[in-house]
């Protein structure tokens, strides 16, 4: 019995030591919806091509999160409080007194986010949503902002109902169960299962200028580690340049990190190049304007919110679009 206990104690100690040793050396970035939404592809490219290592950084992985407050909490709990998250999450954090700083605007549009209805549904256009229900993911998140802004611009916001499903998978489940008439969908699920649905509208076409994904850190961390943050920003920018310059290899990396076949990956990516989806990080004032308008609409923000107090433009020279 005693020898068994000794052996067990030794094993537990070894496991604990290994875990601590591993965590002491490496760092991880927090990225909302990593491995789900395609705006996070640059991080996979940076990891695969060693751009973080080239900059002398010990980043060897990404902490994925569902977005919103989870991303903020993950970022603050991490040893490396640098993250990519949605703009509403960053502003919500700032309003809670967290000293967030936005250092980059990482996507030109909302990408391939669409709202779909079932194949046999009478809901085929935005106008058909009048008197019907459309699902978005989280309350006061990007998808609620988009659906309400689009419905408002088409004059049917008051006559339609929008429902928070809780996530993209949950929204599709709600659609399949008939609980809603339209739900949000993105790639790769869109390409894999899109033939089961009909597209009601493309978010990027309705809102071509939308600043929604932000590269964020805290003011304290930035002031104490400006050089390190610069290196992270540079590594990501290199990854974005790589994506545009190396389509075939990017498709392979996409397939590897998203668990897709290379054929599927290669077929999904072209539309993202067409809309120049990924950004190095240059701020887009018009994009901020659209997003802030949407946030006022969903009650997340008071009128006239000054986003400039959150923006830190010290890296904008590195992040200028090529």
């Amino acid at each position, binding site marked *: 019995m005693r020898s068994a206990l000794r052996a067990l104690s030794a094993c537990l100690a070894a496991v604990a030591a290994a875990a601590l040793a591993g965590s002491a050396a490496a760092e991880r970035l927090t990225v909302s919806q990593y491995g789900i939404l395609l705006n996070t592809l640059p991080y996979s490219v940076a990891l695969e091509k060693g751009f973080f290592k080239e900059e002398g950084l010990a980043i060897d992985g990404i902490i994925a999160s569902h*977005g919103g407050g989870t991303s903020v909490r993950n970022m603050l709990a991490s040893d490396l409080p640098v993250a990519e998250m949605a703009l509403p999450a960053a502003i919500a954090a700032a309003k809670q007194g967290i000293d967030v700083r936005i250092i980059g605007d990482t996507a030109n549009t909302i990408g391939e986010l669409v709202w779909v209805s079932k194949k046999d549904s009478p809901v085929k256009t935005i106008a058909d949503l009048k008197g019907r229900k459309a699902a978005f993911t989280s*309350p006061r*998140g990007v998808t609620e902002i988009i659906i309400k802004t689009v419905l408002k611009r088409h004059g049917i916001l008051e006559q339609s109902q929008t429902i928070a499903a809780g996530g993209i998978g949950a929204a599709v*489940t709600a659609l399949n169960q008939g609980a809603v008439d339209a739900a949000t969908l993105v790639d790769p699920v869109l390409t894999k299962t899109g033939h089961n649905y009909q597209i009601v509208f493309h978010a990027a076409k309705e809102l071509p200028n939308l600043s929604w994904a932000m590269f964020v850190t805290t003011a304290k961390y930035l002031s104490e580690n400006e050089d390190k943050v610069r290196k992270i920003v540079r590594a990501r920018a290199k990854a974005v340049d790589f994506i545009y310059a190396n389509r075939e290899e990017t498709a392979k990396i996409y397939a590897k990190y998203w668990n897709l076949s290379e054929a599927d990956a290669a077929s999904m990516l072209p539309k993202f190049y067409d809309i120049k989806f990924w950004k190095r990080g240059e701020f887009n004032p018009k994009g901020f304007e659209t997003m802030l308008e949407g946030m006022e609409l969903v009650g997340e923000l008071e009128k006239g919110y000054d986003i400039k107090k959150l923006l830190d433009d010290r890296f904008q020279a590195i992040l200028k679009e090529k």
Partner: protein
Amino acid sequence: MTRRQLVVWLRLAFLFGAAGALEILCRTGRIPRLTMIPPSEMVEHLAAALAGGKFTADIVFTFANIGAAAAISIVLGAALGLGIHALPRLRRVVDPMLASYYSVPTFVFYPLLIVLFGLTRWPLVAIGALFGVVAMILNTIAGLDRVPRALAKTARVLRLGPWATVWRIKLPAAAPSLFTGVKLAVTYSVIGVIAGEFILSVAGLGRQIKFAYDSLDNGTMYALLLFVLTATVLVYFLVHGWERRVHRRWTAS
């Protein structure tokens, strides 16, 4: 002061002491606001939310589901426990499965339940019942195992039929274990329903807590957590009080 009164006072002292310590840690910033708000603010937010009626529909939804799940767990669990106890060969087959049941992550079945029952309350009731039923089965079997043989002989002497024996002799004799099973079934039903609402739900306190967490709305989140905690403890003490009354009545007779 009786021993029981002393225990009650000690319990209250511990509770208020812990709350007081948390209050000091939160107010002095040792626990950051993003992590936790002071208990007094939780109470304030809860009072405001209840007075405003903002979460009434969610409260009704969640507790109706918990009630249904607990009822199914208790009735089905007791019935299955009785059946398994009466059939020793069946008991030998299912014993290892029952013993290891709680090592299975039951929540993996939740998406399947949604496919089966739709995006309604029934997957939540089902997951709550699945979580609670085995606790009731195990405690029913344990209780029936402890029924003195003399009582079973007495039932035979009195020529009681099988159902009369179960209803008048075995279940009352197994009452202490049955009540433990009921308390566990209720607790597990709460866990199952609330956790299911975190994953996916059309309404409910779990859903609201998740949204509040995602929105960094600690006021709402902790208010609802406090409500769930308080309500669950109240239900537990109600069942416990009922158990004590039943026990007093039976020992007196």
